[in-house]
């Protein structure tokens, strides 16, 4: 039993290291002039690293069925909010393009292949995405009442995006429509591949 736990821990260690590796932060909120909640909403909707990843997960969950969609709807925004509150108290960090590319490739491929994961696996994936991306969002936001309001705006818009995306595909039955949704996944994965190449060129 202990050996099994140790083996699992050793497998998870590289992943945890990559996820938590600190790099210089470039995140900040742009002012919309409508208050901190809307600043948080605008931050998410104009973040090209976050929106496609959330869309991919929500579309995949919706395509897998109502139970998966509901699970993503509640787990992802909650984890996002929790992660961002944790991130707010931490040293400012940024995810880096490589990690964003890996998320896009993984979630895009998940949607494109319509991979069948267990409900528990889908929950873990939504929680991991929410915690990691939320942590990065939160680490770039100052600790203040308006900062916390912005985080609630962020969590709220994640909830709305997941609700719209998942519910729009959960009832799709036409084969061409389901394939069209999977094509979006292939585009997201292909974008991730290109970003990975771009990052490797930059670091070379």
């Amino acid at each position, binding site marked *: 039993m202990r050996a099994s736990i140790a083996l699992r821990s050793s497998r998870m260690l590289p992943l945890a290291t990559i996820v938590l590796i600190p790099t210089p932060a470039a995140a900040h909120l742009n002012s919309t002039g409508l208050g901190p909640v809307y600043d948080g909403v605008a931050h998410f909707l104009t973040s090209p690293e976050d929106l496609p990843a959330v869309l991919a997960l929500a579309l995949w969950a919706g395509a897998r069925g109502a139970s998966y969609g509901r699970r993503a709807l509640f787990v992802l925004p909650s984890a996002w909010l929790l992660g961002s509150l944790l991130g707010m108290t931490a040293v400012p960090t940024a995810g880096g393009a490589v990690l*964003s590319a890996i998320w896009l490739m993984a979630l895009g491929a998940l949607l494109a292949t319509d991979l069948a994961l267990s409900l528990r696996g889908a929950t873990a994936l939504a929680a991991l995405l929410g915690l990691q991306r939320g942590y990065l969002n939160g680490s770039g936001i100052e600790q203040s009442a308006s900062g916390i309001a912005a985080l609630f705006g962020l969590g709220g818009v994640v909830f709305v995006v997941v609700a719209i995306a998942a519910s729009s595909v959960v009832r799709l039955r036409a084969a061409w429509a389901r394939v069209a949704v999977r094509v979006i996944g292939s585009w997201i994965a292909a974008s991730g591949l290109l970003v990975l190449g*771009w990052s490797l060129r930059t670091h070379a």
Partner: protein
Amino acid sequence: MRVSLILLLVPAAAFAHVGSGETGGFLTGLRHPISGPDHVLAMVAVGLWGAQLGSPAIWLLPFAFPMVMAVGGMLGLMGVPLPGIEYGIATSAILLGAAVTFEARPPLGVAAALVGFFAIFHGHAHGTELPAGQDALLYSMGFVIATGCLHAAGIAIGVLHQWPWGRPLLRIAGAGIVLGGVFFMWRAVA
């Protein structure tokens, strides 16, 4: 005269800024695949051929092309050399155009492998030409979306295949793509 003077003095809003940052990145990426007619011919040919072959090729070929093209683009970005890129691109237009002209019906795996093989050349060419200073993710998304839309355009034109009078038209379009490919091959060799 008075009207002319007034019109001359009306201040116009300045749009002198070069598109940069996020908007510039997405739009540059969107424009890149459609800026080269050799790329456009091959990508539309993939859609036309998919439409002729019907399901599941109609979805699989445009599915395979952007994915493999992104791998080629990644190799190009990383500086991995690939010989004969221009020949590969011209050959892709010739062979894919010929497949449309003769309504070739190879096994699905062979068709996907052919499309995937040539996608590497297209992706590599794009990868080495990507301009610096753009938002990588938005540029890549624009680039992939434009490629997908070119395939969709090919599929939309390929709908003609369901009518008897449309089939010869598609074959003529295929012959046009072959001629375009021959022209680009001639230009690459010269």
